[in-house]
């Protein structure tokens, strides 16, 4: 990935992340998040991880965020949701934690700079075969556990929805 392309996509990613935070309108926020996820997919593509990039688009931008936007559209927020934030005090509590994360980021970056730059590890093939092999050997248990978790969530939602009816 050429540095110019990287800078351009990174700028879009940062701008869309800020847009997500600043915009009051939930639909605008969700669409900014879609743009941001798309930028991350472009980064994956730039690193040669084609499968990961496309999976990112299909799963996050194409499936999860579509559902988000759909849900926001169905439950069009009224005045109370878009009005002044009733939980401002809780937001203030987020400040020290955010500062902590930021300090951590700077420390990591600083440690990176001080350390002698190690030769980059041999490029792991980002192809479908490599990922598939890893998923079904080394990471079989987490992979299956995740699917069980998702299934449990789905069954739970169905149960809740049925009781209401």
């Amino acid at each position, binding site marked *: 990935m050429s540095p110019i392309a990287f800078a351009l996509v990174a700028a879009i990613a940062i701008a869309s992340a800020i847009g997500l935070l600043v915009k009051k309108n939930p*639909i*605008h926020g969700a*669409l900014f998040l*879609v743009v941001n996820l798309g930028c991350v997919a472009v980064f994956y593509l730039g690193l040669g991880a*084609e*499968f990961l990039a*496309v*999976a990112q*688009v*299909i799963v996050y*931008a*194409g*499936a999860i965020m*579509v*559902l988000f*936007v*759909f849900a926001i*559209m*169905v439950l*069009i927020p009224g005045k109370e949701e878009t009005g002044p934030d009733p939980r401002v005090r809780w937001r203030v509590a987020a400040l020290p934690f955010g500062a902590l994360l930021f300090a951590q980021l700077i420390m990591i970056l600083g440690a990176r700079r001080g350390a002698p730059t190690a030769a980059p590890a041999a490029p792991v093939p980002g*192809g*479908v075969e490599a990922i598939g092999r890893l998923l079904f050997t080394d990471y079989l248990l987490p992979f299956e556990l995740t699917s069980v978790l998702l299934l449990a969530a789905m069954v739970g939602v169905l149960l809740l929805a049925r009781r209401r009816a």
Partner: protein
Amino acid sequence: MIDVAIALGRVAFVVMFVVNVSGLLGWVERKQSAIMQDRIGANRASIFGLRAMGLFHPIADALKMLSKEDFRPARADRLLFSLAPFVSVFFGIVAFASIPFGPVVELDGKQIPLQAVTLNVGILYVFAMLSLGVYGVMMAGWSSANNFALLGAQRGAALMISAEIAIGASIMGVIMVYGSLNMMDIAVRQGELLLGWIPRWGIITQPLGFILFLTAGIASTKRIPFDMPEGESEIIGYHVEYSGMKFGMFLMADLLETIVIAGLTTALFLGGWQVPYLTAEGFRFPWGAALGLPYGLVVLMQVGAFVIKVSVMIFVLMLIRWTLPRFRYDQAMRLGWLGLFPLSVLNIVLTGIVVLLLGGAR
């Protein structure tokens, strides 16, 4: 320099093909429906008395739409309202990028794959772009500040999501049979012969997958019999507040998706650019006869075969569009979730068993 020119040429061919054919489809649709319904059809537009079977109608339509007032409702969301048609058209055009329209050509020792973008996960890329098209519909419906448009967008989004899940599940069988996500590889492997004489096309190795994919594909284009998001004549759709060329772009997006579905069907199930028994040296028939042909002619024939197959698929899709009445919304949903999706999963299981029995597992 030459590399850049070749890359530009590959992209330009696909963009020109997709955009121009979508413009032409407006005419095809009218003329075909006229023939089917025993009418004369569009034949009024003329330039200096020249009518050319109504071929000037797409130009007239475009001029009319471009010169119409570009109306925007007072309470509409300005940015999203203008952005929505562009999003719809954009994903329709880029989705075609990794569909191969010809073989990998060898020229002066260079390997030139005849597709706009060479991706190892090409089939997933097309699928991803198709699934992003739904944002155009949702943005249009929501930003219009019109409850009917919003309802239309919700119907459209629900339909497209259910169709895309069925599309994704139904192409799994093809991926399993040909063992690749690269659309060029899939097209190349469809050139092999079964039992020495049957071309190993997707429609023969995956008959159930073909029917499921085609049904789900028609649904994802949001056209009759699945046009409940717009329902031109009686229901109000997501583009009710649009006028002029922005409205035209939504129509164009549907036609673009039709082309993409036709191209995808060709590439996955109808052998892509393969001509039966045609190899790089010429025809080699199973009964022993052979006919040598120059390499350039072979490539031309293969690109021509792809274009013809896509055209035939578009014709079939339009035939269906002018034959069937519209499904009710709940019928379409039931078809997607209780018909297409379970059958696609069944297809995956059956394909897996057959591939294992034939020793195709690697």
